[in-house]
């Protein structure tokens, strides 16, 4: 029997959101500077394997910066400095002997606006496979078909694989980019507002795709759309001014967040 509200709280709040959950990627005290400006401040979290984790927070909170740290896209930016650790499985992403293009194969990325190459639908998906050395046409055909099926695009493009990818509708282009990312069999998919430029129907189709992808891949999704995070994510992380304020299962975070800042943000109050 409960005798006080604090008992009620301890009885119903999980001690840790990730107890017993397999972790695909982990950051430990990850900090990032652009020149003298600190964009991330000792961010530590685990990305649950084969689950969808949403990363939410106001503009400038460091969401995209965090995403780009995870597969070292920030390497391309001058004056960018990273401290702390990013572990993909057992691999230290920033170790000297880490092969960056192999890291990026394991940790794929889908951006806000679809960015298909100005090639055919087929060649877009086959591109990464060819870079990996796959040459046999039959094997390429099989991989391209599997990737397009996994991206829920096959039925729409099976008869027009040689058409230019640029002729596809916006929502189709975004799914093509997903097919291109998963063709090289990554473990993790980073998605930076992938549905923000899509219409409502295409958005829902894309969210359905996310659920299917999460059966095989660990997805980290940056979104500004709170309802989308609430709809699709198993876990949600709230980032504010470069700090990870709260991380928890989505049900708890959207009904009873622990932190005032999280509550203010997800309910649209003055922060």
């Amino acid at each position: 029997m409960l005798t006080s509200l604090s008992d009620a709280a301890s009885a119903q709040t999980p001690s840790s959101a990730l107890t017993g959950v397999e972790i695909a990627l982990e950051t430990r005290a990850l900090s990032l500077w652009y020149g003298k400006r600190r964009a991330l401040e000792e961010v530590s979290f685990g990305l649950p394997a084969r689950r969808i984790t949403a990363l939410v927070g106001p503009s400038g909170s460091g969401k995209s910066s965090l995403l780009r740290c995870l597969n070292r896209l920030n390497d391309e930016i001058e004056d960018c400095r990273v401290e702390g650790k990013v572990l993909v499985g057992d691999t230290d992403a920033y170790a000297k002997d880490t092969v960056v293009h192999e890291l990026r194969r394991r940790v794929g990325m889908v951006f806000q606006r679809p960015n298909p190459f100005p090639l055919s639908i087929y060649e877009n998906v086959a591109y990464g496979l060819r870079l990996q050395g796959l040459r046999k046409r039959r094997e390429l055909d099989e991989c391209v078909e599997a990737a397009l099926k996994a991206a829920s695009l096959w039925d729409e493009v099976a008869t027009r694989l040689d058409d230019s990818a640029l002729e596809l509708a916006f929502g189709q282009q975004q799914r093509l980019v997903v097919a291109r990312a998963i063709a090289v069999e990554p473990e993790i998919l980073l998605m930076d507002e992938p549905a923000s430029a899509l219409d409502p129907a295409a958005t829902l189709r894309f969210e359905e795709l996310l659920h299917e992808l999460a059966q095989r891949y660990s997805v980290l999704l940056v979104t500004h759309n709170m309802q989308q995070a609430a709809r699709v994510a198993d876990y949600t992380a709230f980032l504010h001014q470069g700090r990870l304020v709260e991380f928890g299962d989505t049900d708890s975070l959207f009904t009873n967040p622990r932190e005032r800042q999280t509550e203010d943000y997800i309910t649209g109050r003055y922060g």
Partner: protein
Amino acid sequence: MDRLHLSQHISRQFNSEIEDVRRQVLAMGGLVEEQIAASMHMLTDRDAGSSAEIREREQQVNAAELAIDERCAYILARRQPAASDLRLVIAVVKMLADLERIGDEAKRIAKLAERLVGEEGGTDVTASLGELGAQARDMLRGALDAFARLDEDLALTVMRRDRKLDEVYKELFAILVERMQHAPDQIPVELDRLWCARSFERIGDRCKNVCEYVLYLVRGKDVRHSGLAKGGESPGA
């Protein structure tokens, strides 16, 4: 008091929608409280004069329930509330059902009181019924105050008053059974008094429910069936 910052949304329209719902619930609660007071007056003062007024107010309570339910559905559909906003809407929808049922109990007491107006004797029992009614009415007032002020301490205090009300009800029950055994020809009258007592007891239970929704709203914890109302510690413990 705005402990949950319910009026600090960036959208002023949303602030006003939330505030409207809270105000409407308190207004409905006020009507229900008046129903209890009027039915108690009929019962203890043996005055049937308020029955038409009670029937009319019952219609207002029912209309308020429908109107607030509709507002809550609009907020869910249009705002997709989260966190404390979502808990407010859920708590209000549940609270409405209990408030409406409290109104029904008050109407039932009024009907019974109308039958008891002409009955002689039973002054002590009527006084005890008045005491039970006063406790039930105070619980409702406390529950509504707890909701208005989002006061978890008060909600817990009111919940724990339900035990006292249950004890008074049990004592009265025993007295009424004894009276029926001693004067079987008075059984119909005593049964009417028993039903009144039972309704006040049920009002106490429903006030306890309202307080549980207040705790859910403020703390985000569902304390139903937790035995919390029976505990002796303060919520801050």
